[in-house]
């Protein structure tokens, strides 16, 4: 499958009732991945773990033109997975609720985050605890009926950026700022190096109703293609 340089493919799929066929998907996985999935206490988490890994293997195999079980992963310092052989292909995976999102690019660092919108917490309190001053200010000015979505736009943009950098949450959340604006996702400020914000592009998307997604990639990326992969007929 073709993936031009300067382009990102974002695949989303809904877990739905796939658990009925979980054995099939489990077959795609390595023993290590199976035991990783089995460490989850609740079935819903085991299912998502198996499905997202299977989808990652399947899609990577299509981009790479090699079979899904010939794909091998390695993990960065903070656990970011990467392909364990020389290739331009980069990917990142995220899931929340029933949605799994996988993003692929060539020669560009990439981070993706999806969140199911929940409304059972104090948005401003959370923001004031962890976000940067800029972001808190933007959130305080947000209309009440857009507050939760704005919060999730902010969070997914931040999380996707941290993931693109390959850092864990040990990365200080308040040391950089993103826009909360629906139409213009961007990196405002990177305190450790004021110029770094120029090196990244941010995108927001809606993988499904009630979900918010964001993508961080190198600034050379020109185009993002969103695709829906329905596992169930």
């Amino acid at each position: 499958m073709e993936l031009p340089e300067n382009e990102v493919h974002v695949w989303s799929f809904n877990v739905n009732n796939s658990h009925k066929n979980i054995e099939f998907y489990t077959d795609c996985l390595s023993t290590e991945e199976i035991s990783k999935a089995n460490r989850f206490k609740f079935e819903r988490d085991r299912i998502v773990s198996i499905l997202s890994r299977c989808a990652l293997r399947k899609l990577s195999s299509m981009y790479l033109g090699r079979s899904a079980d010939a794909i091998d992963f390695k993990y960065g310092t903070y656990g970011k997975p990467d392909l364990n052989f020389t290739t331009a292909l980069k990917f990142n995976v995220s899931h929340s609720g029933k949605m799994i999102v996988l993003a692929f690019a060539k020669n560009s660092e990439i981070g993706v985050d999806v969140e199911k919108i929940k409304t059972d917490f104090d948005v401003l309190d959370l923001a004031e605890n962890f976000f940067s001053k800029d972001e808190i200010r933007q959130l305080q000015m947000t209309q009440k009926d857009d507050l939760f979505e704005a919060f999730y736009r902010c969070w997914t943009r931040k999380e996707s950026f941290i993931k693109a950098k390959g850092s864990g949450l040990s990365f200080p959340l308040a040391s950089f700022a993103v826009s909360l604006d629906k139409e213009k996702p961007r990196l405002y400020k990177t305190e450790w190096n004021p110029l770094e914000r120029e090196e990244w592009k941010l995108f927001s998307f809606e993988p499904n109703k009630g979900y918010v997604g964001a993508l961080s990639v190198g600034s050379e990326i020109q185009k993002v293609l969103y695709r829906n992969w329905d596992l169930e007929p």
Partner: protein
Amino acid sequence: MEHTVHDRIGELSAEERELLYFKAEKSLSELRLKQKTEDSSRLVAYVIAKNKFNDDNLKSALRLRLPNYMIPSEIIEVAEFPMLPNGKVDKKRLRRTQRLQNQKIEKLVELPTNDTEKKLLKIWKEVLNVTDIGIFDNFFEIGGDSILSIRVIAKARSAGMTLSANQLFEYQTVSELAAVIMNDEIDIVSEVSDEKFEHIVTLNKRNSRSPLFCLHSGGSHFFYYNLLAKQLEGKRPVYALQASQHEGELKLHDSVHEMAKDFIAEVKRAHPVGPYHFISYCFNTAIGIEIVKILNQNSDEANLIIADTMADYLSLFAPSETTKRASKFIERLKKRPIKTISSFFRGKLMNPLKRKLKTLISTGSEKVIQKLHNNHIKIYKNYKWQAVNSSIQLLLTEERKKPEFNQRIINSWEEIAKKGVEVVPTEGHHDELFLAPTIESTARSIEKCIKHFEKV
């Protein structure tokens, strides 16, 4: 630029055909599986046990070894297997066998053992929206993720527990997290203060974590770091390193190298094994880099955190750097070096400090402090700044008149620390980094540095 998945391509591309094929393959496999498991939709295990066991524990143990579909949905303990005359197990009779009366079937959930665990578990249950979890369950194995982790931290904070954003990533069970919170009660070992030290001053309770040594600042007293030590109380032991005690005969070192050697000897006496962390700023950055250089040469793990200070500060006033305004300063510096620099810094450091800590000054006359301070400047001036084979961490604040000055600070350290400079942003004005309320964020930044150093 909001996108939705609905603007997908209409025609059937090669990759979509491939995915369709994948689906067909899947349907086939389902069919095979269906035939295979038609009359056995549930897997039941019958076991004879030597010792008492717990269903859930057995299942989790099996999960580590077996694929999911081989995990029994029910485990029934029996006294014996009914046998057929041919020596095989009689499955029909087995199915009718009753489970042993005393088999424990209630879920075993590890209950909290103290108040902190109780509070934390309650928060976890609320945030994760689950009920049957215990204190040994791993947050990320029961549905936890990044965003839920910060929700837990925020709730814990408002319940009075101090936790940093990434601590849930480090301590992933209620039990471990509670231990960190209660740490100061648990880990205290003997106090260093019983021993006789000339340079080390213990500033908070000692525990088993890696120690932080604060190089005392030119011209001030070690209690400059008291607030920092208080912030880190329970998290790690904090000591001040001072050139000399203020009572008795003053120890005035001849060089930065001599002072560094003296400090290291006591550091190793207090904590024979690293990693060691040092925090340093202003004139003691020279001693800081010298200490770390020596420790690194001896393969000791040592980390230098520089608080918002330029390396080789006085080179700023070298002729090539001078502007007209600075040249007067240089003239004065040439004539009366110590007095000039002292007064230059007194305004920046001593005065704000004195105002805040006036009541704390109880030992050491100002004259003694001044003498030690002057000696600091003297040996700093004579220090030969050279590249060292170490890395440093640099706390930088942007709250200064010229934020672009930060790049010069970074550059100055890149010249010295050949293994790299890690910049960690921190809040507040330079002069107030160690004063309330800025000290709270400074302490957080310092902890961040330490954690990061120990991870790398």
